[in-house]
Structures are given as C-alpha cells and as structure tokens.
C-alpha cells in the first residue's frame, strides 16, 4: 500500500519532511558538485513575492493534485562563489554561462528533493527548469504564500530557496 500523504488535508508547506527534502537537496548538491558548504537559516513564510537576487532558477513542481513552484534566487556574490568552486571559473557578470549553471543547479536540487519526496509518498514529476535574471517579479496565480529558506555560504553571501504550493 502507498503511504501517500493526505495532501488535501495538509498544506505541504507545513510538512517538515518537504522542507527537509529541499534543505538536504541543496546541501548535497552544493557539497558534491561544488565542494561548497551551505548552511540553512530559519525558514519563513512570505505572503508576497520579494525580489532577492539578480538571477534565479525556477521549476514548476507537479504532483497531482498539488502544483507548485520552486525558485532558487542568488545574488551575484553567492552564485559567483558557487561557480568558482564548481567549475574553477571566476565570473564578474551575469551571462549565459552563469544562467546555464543556475539552470543545472536547479535541476539537480529539484531532482534530489523530488526523489526523497516521492519515497515519502508524494508523486512529483520531473520538469525542465527556467532561468530568469535582472529585475523580475513573480506573481502566483493563486496568490498563495511562499516558504522561503535562506542558505548562507562561507563567503558571507546568502541565497534563497522559495517554495510555493497550491
């Protein structure tokens, strides 16, 4: 028998296992691919989208009947630090290579979290991420709240994992 969570009765943003799956996915991805330690800060709920960086990877999360969005936002200092550790490349501006790397990082973090969540009974499907940069704004159709998890890097910078579930 499947141990599927009763998603209709529980807002997944309050499911600690969902938060942990993303936290573990971030830590594992950055440690394995970029030998970078990321320390999670205290998660918080944000009623409206607030821009938190210059570039973000976004992926639509679908696990019927759930639908949501994963957004990982970086400032220049955080993404350039990760890329230097991962590829040995020093970047000073947001360009196509940086965007590509943000997309792949989003892909790996979501893939890692998705595997954990599906083992718990969710049924998230794989999706191809999109990268956005510049002065962007995201409006969620359902106007739902967003769970934000900050991650601190050793160079003093912070990036943010933002999860919205309908």
């Amino acid at each position: 028998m499947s141990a599927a969570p009763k998603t209709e009765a529980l807002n997944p943003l309050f499911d600690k296992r969902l938060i942990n799956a993303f936290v573990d996915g971030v830590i594992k991805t950055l440690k394995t691919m970029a030998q970078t330690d990321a320390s999670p800060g205290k998660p918080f709920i944000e009623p409206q989208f607030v821009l938190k960086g210059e570039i973000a990877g976004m992926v639509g999360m679908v696990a019927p009947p759930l639908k949501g969005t994963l957004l990982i936002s970086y400032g220049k200092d955080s993404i350039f630090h990760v890329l230097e550790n991962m590829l040995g490349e020093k970047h000073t501006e947001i360009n196509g290579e940086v965007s590509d790397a943000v997309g792949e990082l989003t892909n790996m973090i979501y893939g890692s979290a998705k595997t954990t969540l599906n083992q718990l009974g969710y049924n998230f499907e794989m999706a191809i991420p999109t990268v956005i940069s510049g002065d962007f704004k995201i409006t969620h159709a359902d106007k739902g709240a967003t769970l934000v998890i900050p991650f601190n890097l050793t160079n003093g910078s912070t990036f943010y994992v933002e999860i919205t579930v309908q």
Partner: protein
Amino acid sequence: MFPTDTKFLVVDDFATMRKIIKKVLNELGYTNVEEADDGKTALPMIQSAHDAGQPYGFIISDWNMPGMQGIDLLKACKADPRFKSVPFMLVTAESEQKHILEAAKAGVSDYVVKPFNSATLKGKMERVWAKHNPSAQPKAS
C-alpha cells in the same frame, strides 16, 4: 579501463554539466570528447561518426532534455545494430526505481545519479569497461 584515445560523446542540454563531465574526462586522460545538447542533435552525430569510420567509443547522456530525451536516445542506439554495443551511460537527476528499471530494460551500461563527484563517475566507467570487456578483467592472484 577504456584506452585514453576513446572517443566520447557527452549529451546534456546544460553546457555546465557537459563542462563538468568533460573536465572529469580530461582529468582521467580522455581528450577526444565531443558534445551535443540533446538526443536529437546527438543521434545524427553518432550516425555520421560511424559512417566516417570514427565511431564513438562511449556515450554519456543526460536523461531529462528537451527535443529528444536521453532514454529515447539510448533506445534508438540499442535498436540500431551499428551502435548497439557502444557503451551508454545515463547521467541524470532521476534516481527513482522506476527510472532505473526503465533504463536497465533499455540496455543502459550504467547509471550515474546527479549530484555526483569525479570518483563516482570514474568508478562507474570502470564498471562499464568491465561489463563490455569481460575478457579484460584482471585475473585474481
């Protein structure tokens, strides 16, 4: 292990992952590495390399790509007697049992789950070499 003149094809829609895999291959001494950004681009490259008498000796492909997915590229290669025996490794964020089984059924040589490090990729390549060259296994002393 595969000889250092082995010709590799790395297929991934993200240049970053192609760069990472290429970097690991270079560190292992492999410099004959070509790239494609999805299965649709890779398949004609595999065909023309074969026709030119310089076939790929190892294909490393992502699973989740637009155009043509890695699993479909694997199936296309296995369905063609010319490329059937070329070692084919999937490098992917898909680590669920159903995906691993689907890839195994389609004839994948091995499977690397992202995120991975260079030691993991090297270890998997050694396993693929042993699988495809059983007679080249070192003898137990």
